[in-house]
């Protein structure tokens, strides 16, 4: 085998890649459970690709047959139910992981110099993921798919000047129909997906350039041993590969428990209204987005004016891009920033409160909550430059704590 290895490595830099990205990629040794999310996200994306491919083999993208073809997968295709539940529940679980992954970045200051670009690429992936989820959401053509498609494309419609033309382009006509399903399938499975995959690849390359942050927010590259390796770093392989394999085991156990015992997650992962066919004559009393998009939807509804609501939602989506420059504190990790730590906690509670309220019917009693949530969300980013300047910080140790 050694001879084959030599033959191969003269022609392809396999050993070099292994060394650079696994055996000699040094990661901090103090990772906690939040650091499983990266490898798990990668796994889930691969699973979505495989299950999506299998679903596509049985799916018919026409307004007439889309719903029936999806039910055909659920009822008649051998193991079709398993594949579809994996794909549908996989989306919600990807967003669970994404929120943990992003939250971890905020908690430990992983967006700060020198990881600004890494953060921006990562956040772009999140936005692409929302688009990918929406495109897929319309395909089964249940009644929720239809009305969600209408609502989102009508938001595109409100873009100044080019909006109407753009929404016609997105829908493939004046309404949601076969042309919409065909182009959404092409986007979901080909163009959008591959842009997403490329962004993930770039994200990992950028990560390996700057190295991983850690819960203490200390640069391990600053303290190197005699051999030139970081003293607090350990080779990714074998240490983190075996650790991540354990993470995969636990995660797949959770995933399987959902698929086998609560595949609709009581209407949260697979909503009730997806079980009636698309019907332009029966409008839903309240079209609510899936839980992972609901925080932004709640902010959209917080303002009674449609245009102002869309602007607020767009601002809310875009603000995290600026996080690396809004934070002025000399310290990265919230472990040594008591005020910032509270801000993050409030932000997390606010975000999931907005997710909950975004799922509720548009009743006046929720307006206050929606507005307060939107104010706290935007306020976090607006106040951060000021608070981070004067907030007291605790002494950061020189070496990572374990």
């Amino acid at each position, binding site marked *: 085998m050694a001879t084959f290895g030599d033959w191969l490595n003269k022609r392809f830099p396999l050993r070099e890649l292994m060394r650079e990205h696994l055996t000699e990629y040094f990661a901090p*040794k103090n990772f906690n459970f939040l650091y499983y999310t990266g490898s798990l996200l990668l796994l889930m994306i691969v699973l979505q690709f495989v299950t999506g491919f299998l679903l596509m083999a049985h799916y018919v993208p026409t307004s007439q047959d889309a719903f029936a073809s999806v*039910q055909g997968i*659920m009822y008649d295709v051998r193991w079709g139910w398993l594949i579809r539940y994996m794909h549908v529940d996989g989306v919600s679980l990807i967003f669970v992981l994404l929120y943990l992954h992003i939250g971890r970045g905020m908690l430990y200051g992983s967006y700060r110099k020198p990881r600004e670009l890494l953060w921006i690429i990562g956040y772009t992936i999140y936005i692409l993921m929302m688009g990918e989820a929406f495109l897929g959401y319309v395909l089964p053509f249940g009644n929720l798919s239809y009305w969600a498609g209408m609502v989102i494309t009508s938001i595109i419609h409100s873009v100044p000047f080019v909006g109407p033309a753009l929404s016609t382009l997105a829908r493939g006509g004046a309404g949601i129909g076969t042309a919409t399903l065909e182009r959404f399938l092409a986007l979901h499975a080909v163009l959008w997906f591959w842009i997403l995959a490329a962004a993930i690849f770039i994200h990992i390359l950028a990560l390996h350039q700057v190295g991983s942050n850690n819960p203490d927010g200390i640069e391990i590259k600053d303290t190197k041993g005699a051999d030139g390796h970081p003293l607090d770093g350990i080779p990714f392989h074998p*240490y983190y590969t*075996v650790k991540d394999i354990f993470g995969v085991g636990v995660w*797949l*156990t959770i995933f399987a428990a959902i698929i086998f015992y609560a595949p609709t997650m009581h209407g949260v992962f697979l909503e009730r*209204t997806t079980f009636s066919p698309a019907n332009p004559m029966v409008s839903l009393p309240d079209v609510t987005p899936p839980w992972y998009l609901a925080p932004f939807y709640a902010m959209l509804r917080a303002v009674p004016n449609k245009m102002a609501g869309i602007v607020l939602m767009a601002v809310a989506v875009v603000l995290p891009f600026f996080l690396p420059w809004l934070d002025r504190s000399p310290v990265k990790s919230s472990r040594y920033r008591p005020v910032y730590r509270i801000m993050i906690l409030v932000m997390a509670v606010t975000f999931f409160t907005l997710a909950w309220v975004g799922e509720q019917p548009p009743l006046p009693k929720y307006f206050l909550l929606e507005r307060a949530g939107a104010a706290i969300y935007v306020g976090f980013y607006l106040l951060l430059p000021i608070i981070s300047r004067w907030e007291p910080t605790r002494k950061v140790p020189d070496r990572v704590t374990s």
Partner: protein
Amino acid sequence: MKIMRKYAIVAVLVAGVAGLSVRANADTLLSLPAGYFNKPAVIAGAKLFARHCSACHSVQSLRFNRLASLGMTKAEIQKDVMLESGANYLQGMQPAMTLAQAKGWFGMPPPDLSHMVRNLGAGFIYNYLQSFYWDPSRPSGWNNHLFPKVAMPNVLQPWSGIVTKQGKVIEPGRVTPAAFHKKVADIVAFLRYASDPSVFTRYKLGGYVLGALIAFSLIAYWLKKEYWKDVHSDSAKHKK
């Protein structure tokens, strides 16, 4: 209480779809008996469904032969579920009534029930089927507490009897209320199965899959512990 609230929410939702208001009192809602959902109940429900519901309602997504996976024989399915309707064993369940008849009698075709339980909830359907009351002002003579002005008549009248809106019994049912509840629960069990026929396979297979994954996780944990010994001992940090 939580379940009651869920049903109330679903009821509001359904009324919203119909553009009507709900007058049902949440206190009167019934809970499905625990453990109502099992294979014998689904089979019993399929037979009841065939006799009382399939004249008007289709279950397009569920093919008759699928019922064989519950342990029914082909002869049994043909005799008790397909009846004499001339239905195709390999096709989905179709109503005996034609579309033209449906339009003439009810103004609109009765909905397909394949996904109704997942759409409206088992609890809602269980209560809905037991919420009919006598209302001479309606074309069918029937109205419903949970779904006011619904076009469907009370097809379960022989069991439920005739009750006025205020709950006064005009004619008692032929079976006891307990037996009536059981029959409706069986029909709901069948519809729940119809909305998700992988359910029994899932429940059974799930145990093995979870067992295998937990075993895998334990082995992986042990492996991780072994490898990480030298990280924690801090001595062989740069061992390759």
